[in-house]
């Protein structure tokens, strides 16, 4: 096995940061004790199930639930009429965007129309799961089938079936008043595009399409709700953000947030897909009617057909460069399939499309398009992978046409501090160039790839990362340990990385910190686990909390020595009497005296840091072998280079890079929502082909550390950017192997084989 990771600039400046302690929740997770949302079990709990539309687009003329309600063991049935009505202009503002309340409610229980196959129509609670499911068969829904559209370009046409009567195109803050499936249009412009292309010696322009792909977490969506007669609703669920669930659930149910307590259970993967609520409101309504706790867990088919895929896309890109390879002009038209309701990450797509390069002249048009697919949700660097596939393929083509090394052309144009992006923002210190340089220097790149039908590809990607609000509360125990309560649900080991930042400040071993994830009633407001923000922002909150603990402990030490506060300093983990160096107390010793030193020691960090527009860059190298007779691709070797700012727990940084790489590889080669007649036909882990461990090699990682200029430890988020470049790198590798350019994701064997056939035919013809 090859080495896994190189930490490039590891500077030895820290004691705890950069080490690899065992995660605090680890033992529970390897012994089966950890309780995930799907594991909830309450006394007297009922089981809920959701009836979902088999049709992609239909008007609901009527729903008859009487037979289902009469089935023995069925305790309640709810439909859209059990939700409060919403005004057309009521909105809920969430971190991920602003949504019309009517849209959120009708995604939970369809009102007059179903807008996608899998759209929730009714919910049942019964004494067993089997009975609940039998009851679903007894619900009669009278549908008037309407024409559907699932292709993003088709949905944009004037004659396309309209999903919403009242949807008009928004033009960045202005309502165009035009009825359309195009929910919004955004445009960025920089420099003089025409001049840029006129000065270009080489221009490439192509169209690209990417399929809807799913986040693919292994734990299905779930919610258990108990609505007590005092009006207090408790929801236990797997979520990326308990406060987001609280806000959505309260909004959808029309009750104040204070009436909803959300307990985040352990979460079995999210990747952006566990930000929206899908089940909590239905479970709550059923609980209210029955007076019992109600648990709903989606089937895997439901997960695919009813929850957030990332948008399918149409991307057209034109690039111009001079003879030296300097990019002079760039134009992109991007359409994202938002699904049944507006809200795709089109803004992010439009920002990310040219974000890796210094291009003086640019124009980007982005469109958020509704169509008859499930409402899309965020997926790891949402919007960036789709556009990166197009640009990084074309940059490769320019390099090839100019006879340039693919890394050299990227270095020549690499984004740097002070560069203005097409959206107008100017970069602070970033690590784009460094990831390219490390990739170039890597043994992988330096080792020639030999053998027939083999090829190497490279691509560079970007994700902007988020800051947002986080709270951490720390309480010192008399044995010198610290209980640390945080609001960020832990999907990938973040308890460890937050505890380590806390420990670093106080010179404690990581093991002395006992981190816990609180519910919405026990911890301060904290935004979602997403946007690569937890180690960055919640870590920052931990840093602030640790500093407060330090300040308080200094006063306690002063009290202990009956000295003045100014006489005590903190050094190397010890509290020291400045004028009497004999008086020295370790954290643990001081903690043991706290019983006699007045009030408890509690520190809080509550932050809302600006993340900056810098974000994180990745560069990856992919070696592939293509079977020319079948078009099947085997990944021979894969290396991911990422700027982590500072790697707090390198193992989990590598883990993010490897996981993102694997998802990117799946997106590149085989994953897709396969539609026929408006219906997804492959809604299972059998036919939605996520990579197995036989499909992947070891994923080598190089952590680059270009510290974030503002973060106290220099942390940048690392969660997302690794998913971005793999599809383009693999496309470029396939070209290197067999000489065909793939423009559509996934690059399925049949597509590669067809492209090879066409190339052969073209060669013969000439």
């Amino acid at each position, binding site marked *: 096995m090859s080495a896994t990771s190189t930490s490039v600039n590891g500077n030895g400046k820290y004691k705890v940061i950069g080490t690899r302690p065992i995660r605090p929740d680890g033992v529970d997770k390897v012994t089966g004790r950890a309780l995930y949302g799907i594991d909830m079990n309450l006394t007297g709990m009922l089981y809920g199930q959701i*009836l*979902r*539309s*088999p*049709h992609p687009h239909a008007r609901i003329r009527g729903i008859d639930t009487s037979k289902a309600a009469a089935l023995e063991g069925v305790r309640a049935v709810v439909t859209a009429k059990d939700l409060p009505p919403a005004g057309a202009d009521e909105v809920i503002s969430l971190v991920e965007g602003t949504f019309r309340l009517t849209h959120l409610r009708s995604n939970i229980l369809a009102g007059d129309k179903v807008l996608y*196959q899998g759209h929730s*129509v009714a919910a049942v609670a019964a004494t067993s*799961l*089997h009975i609940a*499911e*039998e009851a*679903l*068969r007894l*619900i*009669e*829904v*009278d*549908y008037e*089938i309407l024409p559907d559209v699932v292709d993003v370009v088709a949905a944009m046409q004037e004659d396309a079936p309209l999903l919403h009567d009242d949807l008009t195109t928004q033009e960045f803050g202005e309502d165009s008043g035009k009825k359309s499936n195009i929910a919004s249009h955004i445009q960025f412009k920089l420099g003089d595009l025409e001049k840029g292309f006129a000065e270009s010696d080489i221009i490439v322009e192509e169209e690209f399409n990417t399929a809807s792909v799913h986040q693919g977490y292994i734990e299905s969506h779930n919610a258990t709700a108990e609505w007590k007669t005092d009006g207090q609703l408790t929801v236990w669920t797997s979520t990326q953000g308990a406060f987001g669930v609280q806000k959505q659930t309260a909004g959808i149910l029309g009750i104040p947030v204070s009436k909803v307590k959300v307990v985040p259970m352990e979460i079995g993967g999210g990747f952006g897909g566990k930000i929206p609520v899908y089940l909590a409101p239905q479970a709550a309504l059923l609980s209210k009617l029955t007076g019992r706790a109600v648990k709903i867990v989606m*089937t*895997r*088919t*439901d997960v695919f*057909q009813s929850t957030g895929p990332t948008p399918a896309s149409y991307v057209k890109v034109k690039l111009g460069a001079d003879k030296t390879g300097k990019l002079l002009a760039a134009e992109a038209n991007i359409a994202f399939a938002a699904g049944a309701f507006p809200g795709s990450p089109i803004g992010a797509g439009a920002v990310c499309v040219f974000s890796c390069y210094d291009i003086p002249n640019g124009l980007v048009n982005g469109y958020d398009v509704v169509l008859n697919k499930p409402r899309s949700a965020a997926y790891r660097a949402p919007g960036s992978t789709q556009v990166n596939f197009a640009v990084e393929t074309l940059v490769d083509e320019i390099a090839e046409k100019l006879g340039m090394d693919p890394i050299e052309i990227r270095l020549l144009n690499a984004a740097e501090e002070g560069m203005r992006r097409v959206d107008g923002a100017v970069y602070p210190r970033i690590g784009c160039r460094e990831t390219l340089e490390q990739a170039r220097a890597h043994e992988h790149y330096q080792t020639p790839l030999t053998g027939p039908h083999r090829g190497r590809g490279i691509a560079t990607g970007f994700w902007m990362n988020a800051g947002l609000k986080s709270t951490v509360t720390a309480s010192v125990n008399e044995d010198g340990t610290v209980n640390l309560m945080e609001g960020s649900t832990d999907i990938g080991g973040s308890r460890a990385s937050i505890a380590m930042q806390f420990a670093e400040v106080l010179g404690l071993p990581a093991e002395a910190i006992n981190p816990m994830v609180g519910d919405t009633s026990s911890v301060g407001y904290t935004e979602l686990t997403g946007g690569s923000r937890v180690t960055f922002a919640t870590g920052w909150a931990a840093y602030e909390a640790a500093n407060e603990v330090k300040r308080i402990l200094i006063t306690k030490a002063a009290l202990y020595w009956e000295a003045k506060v100014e006489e005590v300093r903190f050094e190397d983990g010890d509290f020291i009497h400045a004028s009497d160096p004999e008086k020295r107390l370790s954290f643990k010793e001081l903690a043991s005296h706290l019983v006699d030193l007045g009030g408890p020691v509690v520190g809080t960090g509550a932050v809302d840091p600006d993340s900056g527009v810098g974000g994180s860059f990745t560069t990856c190298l992919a070696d592939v072998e293509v079977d020319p*007779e*079948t078009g*099947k691709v*085997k990944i021979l070797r894969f290396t991911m280079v990422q700027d982590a700012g500072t790697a707090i727990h390198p193992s989990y940084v590598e883990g993010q890079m490897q996981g993102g790489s694997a998802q990117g590889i799946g997106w590149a*080669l*085989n994953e897709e929502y*396969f539609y*026929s007649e408006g*219906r997804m*036909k*492959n809604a*299972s882990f*059998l*036919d939605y*082909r996520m*990579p*197995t461990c*036989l*499909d992947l090699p070891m994923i080598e990682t190089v952590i680059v550390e270009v510290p974030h200029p503002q973060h106290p430890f220099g942390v940048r988020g690392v969660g997302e950017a690794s998913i971005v470049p793999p599809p383009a790198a693999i496309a470029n590798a396939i070209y290197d192997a067999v000489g065909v350019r793939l423009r559509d994701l996934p690059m*399925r*064997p*049949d597509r590669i*084989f*067809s492209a090879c056939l066409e190339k052969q035919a073209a060669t013969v013809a000439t």
Partner: protein
Amino acid sequence: MVIGDIERKLRLQNFEYSAPVTVKEAIDLLAGDNCGARILAGGTDLIVQLRQGHLSTDRVVDIKRLPDCNKLSYDPSEGLILGAAVPCHRIYGDETIVKTYPGLIDAAAIIGGIQIQGRATVGGNLCNSSPSADTIPILIAYRAECEIAGPTGTRKVPVEDFCTAPGKNILQKGEILLALHLPSVAKSSGAHYLRFIPRFEMDIAVVGAGAYVELDEEGRSFKKARIGLAAVAPTPLFAREAGDLLQGKEVSEASIDAAALAAQSIARPISDMRAPAEYRKHLVKVLTKRALWGAVRRARGEFVPNAVQENGR
């Protein structure tokens, strides 16, 4: 009015469970029922299909306690008796079978993952009668026969005549597949099964091809050949003419290409989520060639690793 039909994975409908210990008892249970009892062997297809609502039943008859269905015995003159309830892992765990019927191992060791192979049976794979079943082409190539017991006695049917349509077969009410009989293999013979899937494991065959060949003593020409195909028609196909073409022919690129083209000509695949028809048609040729060459090399005593040898079980 369109009632909300359910295309979802559900828990199971209710049914009775029986685990008979004699064939007679099993037949009585299956024959006596009104609403279609279902036979449970490994359950890796049945349980999923009941959950999905593709099948329904009021009784599940578990045949794993029937001694006749658990036989796994080889005799050089009689061949192999493969009980219908014998899971894949027992087949590839048997060294004699690995050595004697490498083509069967090729198929038995690629169905699902290890945990599926711990349960799944070749008999169940046949009775599920999916066009894409991995074991059926190689059973056809090996000239396997089905031993079927029913209310009126037992009968034997060539495996290529067993499947009648997707998910349908010749089993009548009350009948059970007890075992498969594979004739003994000739000297200078070899067999090979392979399939095409987009991933490297866990997929359903996009196309599968199995071949059995007997060569002359020098290994230069074909004495006979049989070819079976998966996922290219409503049932697994016996490419009889393609195999017959090879009889007496020299082993060469040309003869094997001709057989592959003949196999391709009878394929009539569909386009679905797993692959487009045209691509499947192309794959038939590629895989038939590869299966024949693999079989030839084994017939010549060359080492062509099967999934067990390649992956170390």
